[in-house]
């Protein structure tokens, strides 16, 4: 899993032929994008929608990029950034039905309507731990999923979430602490 070396074929393929390159790009990151989408949304159907939308937007953006821009691209962090933007917009649209608050305040508490038991019962993702993840506040869940489910380095998570590395680390450690408290350690 070491950086540039494994990314290069993807960029090369994209530069060769955008459409065939896209197939490479999808093949390289589909597991990463889908896993993240699944553990963030907690639902299989939502994860499929998020993944399809992220790759479609990525393709449309790539179609407008010149060669230099594609050559400089960090495709993994880039596609994950697209995914996180879509996820945040969806989550915001869902949680704020009445007039949207444009100040973009982070929501600190998990959905109060759902307790540990309900989450454990919600077994759509096939795992109690997955249910517990959904109890974390959004930014902690995002940090934990990116760090420990899909194994991104902290520096890349900082890029994807547009926050300092120190903040990434603190979200991860608080998230893990909370999961343990909720019984995630078993």
């Amino acid at each position, binding site marked *: 899993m070491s950086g540039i070396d494994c990314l290069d074929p993807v960029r090369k393929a994209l530069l060769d032929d955008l459409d065939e390159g896209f*197939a490479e790009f*999808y093949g390289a990151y*589909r*597991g990463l994008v889908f896993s993240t989408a699944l553990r963030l949304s907690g639902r299989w159907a939502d994860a499929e929608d998020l993944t399809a939308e992220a790759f479609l937007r990525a393709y449309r953006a790539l179609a407008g990029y010149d060669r230099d821009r594609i050559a400089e691209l960090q495709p993994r962090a880039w596609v994950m950034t697209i995914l996180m933007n879509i996820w945040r917009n969806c989550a915001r649209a869902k949680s704020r039905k009445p007039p949207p608050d444009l100040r973009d305040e982070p929501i600190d508490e998990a959905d109060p309507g759902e307790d540990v038991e309900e989450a454990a019962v919600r077994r759509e993702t096939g795992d109690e731990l997955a249910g517990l993840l959904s109890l974390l506040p959004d930014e902690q869940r995002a940090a934990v*999923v990116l760090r*420990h489910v899909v194994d991104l380095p902290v520096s890349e998570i900082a890029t994807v979430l547009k926050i300092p590395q120190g903040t990434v680390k603190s979200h991860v450690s608080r998230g893990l602490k909370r999961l343990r408290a909720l019984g995630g350690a078993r």
Partner: protein
Amino acid sequence: MTHDPLLTGLAALAADPPEGLLDRIAARWVAVPGPIGELRVAFTDQGVAYVHVGDGFAPAFRERFGRPLLAAARPPAGLLPALRTGRAAGLRLDLRGMSDFQREVLETVRTIPRGEVRPYSWIAANVGRPKAVRAVGTALGRNPVPLLIPCHRVIRSDGVVGDYVFGPAAKERLLLAEGADLGRVRELAGERVFYLASDTTGVVCFPTCHNARRITPAHRHGFRDLAQARAAGYRPCRTCRPAQTGATA
């Protein structure tokens, strides 16, 4: 960090997307023989989305649909027979991205059988906008799936074929190959006859309707508009539905 069950549990939550997910994102393409030379056809999981002749297929598709386009192993089910027979009513099409008006126009065009033609005004009346004849022409010009939605079967009421995505000459060739008697339509139009009626059935049709083609000369009566035919006691054919033509009804 060596053996933390929580971290092990989290790592085990990674999952692969289902096999078919790529087909929700990317379209596939094939090259197939068609009645006017080789065609490039793009299709999605929803159905056939795009039919193209000549150069510039991939850029045109990208411009219009903004989807990745990958080579397909084989054509979608039903495509080849539809192209061979000119009967494509059962073929699944992907018309997402069309406006409601465009889609209604195209769905109406789909009902025109092989070997027959209808005037632009009939389409306009059929979609409830009898005055929107020009808009119908524009919608047909944007038909993403020519041949499969047979926009070549929509012509001017005077028998002139009018515009076509692949050019008027191709339109005329296609119609002749399908057995539409354009010469006859023009001849009748020259006599100001746009409808044919049978005094044995009491039914009035468009001239290319298969019911009209069966009328023997002795029983055939031509009409300039539907009002005249009605006044003479004829009812509009239920197959070609000429009553939908607003302008002359």
